[in-house]
């Protein structure tokens, strides 16, 4: 008998901030590979953005305002119990939920999440964690692995590693990354993706893995935390872009991720950055939940929230 028989199969999708989790998931939904799945999105910030991108999933739940591996772990357990409960009430013969995809926040360690689901006395009868997939950013992950213990923990627990943005790096560094990944987690399957679409990976059999420092030798850094910035009427898009481009130029190594939806004359623009790289803003339709428009989340370290706000106000002043 299959161990999963009768239980909902849960796929946990993890990966560091900006590694391309949502892009990958969105493409899988578009291709119909996750038909019928209940998608749960967790975001560390209180402003959910990823749900705006995942409109194609049949059922979507958002857990915002804390990481499900720590602060919001009980919220996740409660949600999964509710889903299981509703499924148990489905009459025989009717279609039952078979699959859950949990997209964790970029700050989450998937290990404790899987452990929490497996050790819950109720969920153990209803949900089986079938796979842990971790997205790895080909462009930034080697530098993250050198300095961020979290990035390494995410990779170590994966069953499958999806190396994203493989079109943006040269073959040599990509081979080094692949050799490093296979050294960190030799058992994990490796595949490549560009904007969610499968992309072949080069042979890396002769490549040397990066010699990473021991995690206990890493200098302690301040934790990465999310800050919410409200762009009120006094902040125009042009001033905001001048400010953000300067901020990323000066502090792109500390500002790990910026995301949010900004209202501009062009329409609703989805803004996303990963360190110093800014993705071309995408125009979102005038629909869905727009309550969080003009709320930007800045995730990083080394500054105070109040200083970000004051600095932005300085840049946006009309008369100097």
């Amino acid at each position, binding site marked *: 008998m299959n161990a999963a028989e009768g239980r909902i199969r849960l796929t946990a999708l993890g990966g560091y901030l900006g590694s391309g989790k949502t892009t990958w998931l969105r493409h899988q939904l578009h291709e119909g590979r996750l038909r019928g799945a209940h998608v749960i999105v967790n975001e560390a910030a209180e402003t959910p953005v990823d749900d705006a991108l995942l409109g194609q999933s049949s059922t979507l739940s958002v857990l915002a305002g804390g990481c499900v591996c720590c602060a919001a772990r009980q919220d996740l357990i409660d949600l999964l119990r509710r889903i299981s409960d509703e499924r148990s009430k489905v009459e025989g013969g009717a279609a039952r939920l078979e699959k859950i995809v949990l997209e964790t926040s970029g700050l989450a360690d998937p290990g404790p999440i899987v452990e929490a689901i497996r050790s819950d006395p109720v969920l153990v009868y209803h949900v089986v964690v079938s796979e842990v997939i971790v997205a790895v950013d080909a462009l930034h992950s080697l530098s993250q692995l050198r300095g961020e213990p979290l990035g390494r923990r995410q990779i170590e627990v994966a069953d499958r590693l999806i190396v994203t943005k493989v079109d943006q790096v040269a073959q040599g560094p990509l081979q080094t990354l692949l050799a490093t990944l296979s050294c960190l987690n030799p058992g994990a399957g490796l595949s490549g993706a560009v904007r969610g679409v499968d992309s072949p990976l080069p042979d890396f059999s002769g490549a040397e893995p990066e010699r990473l420092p021991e995690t206990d030798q890493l200098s302690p850094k301040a934790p990465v935390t999310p800050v919410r910035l409200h762009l009120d009427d006094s902040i*125009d*898009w*042009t*001033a905001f*872009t*001048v*400010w953000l*481009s*300067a*901020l990323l*130029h*000066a*502090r792109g190594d500390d500002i790990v991720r910026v995301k949010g939806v*900004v209202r*501009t*004359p*062009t329409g609703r*623009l989805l*803004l996303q950055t990963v360190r110093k790289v*800014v*993705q*071309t*803003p995408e125009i979102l339709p005038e629909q869905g939940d727009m309550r969080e428009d003009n709320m930007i989340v800045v995730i990083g370290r080394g*500054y105070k929230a109040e*200083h*970000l706000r*004051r*600095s*932005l106000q*300085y*840049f*946006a*002043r009309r008369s*100097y």
Partner: protein
Amino acid sequence: MCSACGFPAAPGHWTEAGAPTAHDRLRSRMRRAEVLQAVLPFYGLKAYGGGEVPGIQISALSGGESILRDLDEVWALAEKMSGGPVDPLDPRFIGDE
């Protein structure tokens, strides 16, 4: 390509995404120069507005002018000239001086 100065337009820099019409783009360029002018003089640079020239016109207070493609080039030039990046969290911009 601008037929007057031969300066190639660089479509698609993310900061230009919010201006759909020519009118919006012109207004945005002038506003961009205004914002830059609040910041760059601290770094020995001056920004000019106006719609005559595509790109961003920057002059050094010590003389010399450049037309830059986008803001990334502006910050790189400012860093080169002043020996450090333009940091929006510098005390002078957050009122902590």
